[in-house]
């Protein structure tokens, strides 16, 4: 009996699988789960499963890069694969060379994913939409030179408001070079005009693919000039429509949205003029009425009246001044009399008249026996005269 190594076994089973023509290739239907895109190698790993079973799957970078969309968990797909065995782990797996979504279709999935990606970047956010100017002077147009759109736009601009300058940047609107051509036209116009119209006439969904291009969406998003998009497909808005500042259904509608109508402007001007004139008449009328009121006033009619009033006022003031002065004098006089009587009651002469007398030696009033010696000459002052005396003898205390 021959004993094999594990590696030998795995290699042998692998060769059996790879030689089986039923398995090379095989088409499988299932749902993707545990999808993982290995960013370094670029290979994709996932599990393909249905209700009963699952199998591990690998899609190498070379094939994965050929997909127009990103596979994701839960997606129902049909894959074309070869079956083989991963020798190191002894696990069998499928190597996917192509992968087609079921249901939505490849293009629809790619478009949905692109839309989600751009939405996550904020390209469609309403808050970042630029205001379309009220009175643009220069209107930029990006569309095909041959389509119906340019004619529609120019006709509408001409009839609506010829007072604008048009800068027309022709671009291809379908075919492989269309996205780049549209981006270049847009960039050439950016900064040279006040608003840019981009669009084309109606067409099938296939024809609009250039307007679903990611690079175009980013160019519209980054454009400093407001963009009006008219790609002409009512049902399903293109990515260009969603990224633009304003989307309209037709090229004609784009031209209408870009410029005001001349007739409306003229009417508006007329209305402003009317308001201005009305206001002026009202103002003049009011001033006239004010003047009339002033003119009819008594003093203007009879200036003497004013003098009389002033004279009356003067005499009234003078009278009240005199009255004030009298009252003041009376009040002061009473005050003087009161103070005099207070002063009088405090006078020493007043005390002497009640029987007291004052002793003086020289100029000094004597208030103590200690100030005197026997033989001093003193004066004794009464209320009605003075007695000159000599001290005979001093006795202390009473």
């Amino acid at each position, binding site marked *: 009996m021959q004993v094999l190594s594990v590696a030998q076994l795995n290699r042998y089973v692998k060769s059996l699988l790879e030689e089986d023509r039923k398995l090379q290739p095989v088409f499988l239907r299932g749902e993707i789960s545990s999808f993982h895109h290995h960013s370094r190698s670029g290979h994709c790993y996932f599990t393909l499963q249905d209700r009963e079973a699952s199998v591990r799957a690998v899609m190498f970078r070379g094939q994965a890069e050929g997909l127009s969309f990103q596979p994701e968990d839960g997606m129902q797909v049909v894959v074309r694969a070869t079956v083989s065995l991963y020798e190191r782990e002894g696990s069998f797996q499928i190597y996917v060379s192509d992968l087609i979504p079921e249901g939505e279709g490849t293009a629809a999935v790619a478009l949905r994913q692109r839309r989600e990606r751009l939405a996550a970047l904020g390209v469609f956010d309403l808050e970042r939409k630029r205001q379309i100017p009220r009175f643009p*002077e220069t209107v930029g147009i990006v569309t095909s030179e041959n389509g119906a759109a340019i004619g529609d736009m120019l006709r509408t601009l001409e009839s609506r408001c010829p*007072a604008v300058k048009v*800068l027309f940047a022709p671009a291809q609107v379908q075919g492989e070079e269309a996205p780049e051509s549209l981006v270049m036209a847009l960039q050439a116009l950016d900064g040279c005009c006040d608003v840019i119209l981009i669009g084309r006439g109606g067409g099938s969904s296939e024809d609009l693919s250039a307007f679903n291009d990611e690079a175009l969406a980013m160019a519209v998003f980054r454009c400093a000039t407001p963009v009006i998009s008219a790609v002409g497909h009512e049902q399903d808005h293109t990515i260009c429509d969603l990224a633009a500042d304003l989307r309209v259904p037709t090229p004609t509608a784009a031209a209408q949205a870009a410029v005001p109508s001349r007739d409306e402007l003229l009417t508006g001007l007329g209305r402003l003029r009317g308001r201005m*004139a009305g206001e002026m008449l009202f103002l003049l009328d009011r001033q006239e009425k004010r003047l009339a009121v002033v003119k009819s006033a008594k003093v203007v009619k009879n200036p003497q009246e004013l003098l009389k009033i002033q004279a009356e006022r003067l005499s009234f003031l003078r009278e009240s001044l005199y009255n004030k002065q009298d009252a003041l004098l009376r009040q002061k006089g009473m005050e003087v009399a009161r103070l005099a009587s207070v002063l009088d009651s405090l006078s020493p002469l007043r005390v002497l008249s009640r029987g007291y007398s004052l002793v003086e030696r020289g100029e000094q009033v004597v208030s103590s026996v200690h100030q005197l010696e026997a033989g001093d000459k003193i004066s004794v002052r009464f209320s009605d005269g003075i007695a000159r005396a000599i001290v005979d003898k001093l006795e202390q205390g009473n």
Partner: protein
Amino acid sequence: MDKKKDTVSFEQGMSRLEEIVASLEEGSVELETAMALFTEGAKLSASLEKQLRDAKLTVEKLLPEQKQG
């Protein structure tokens, strides 16, 4: 709305005219100021109307050869 000559742009003209009407309607301006505003407004509206009536649509085509501006 033609290229900037010595005249103001249509947008500037319209904004100024609206401003004039608003300050007249506010009613607190003096008569002399009001007269001056009215005169300016009348001239402005006439020139704006002339701009609208006289203008012809001009179309300039950019050459597609202008690669990578």
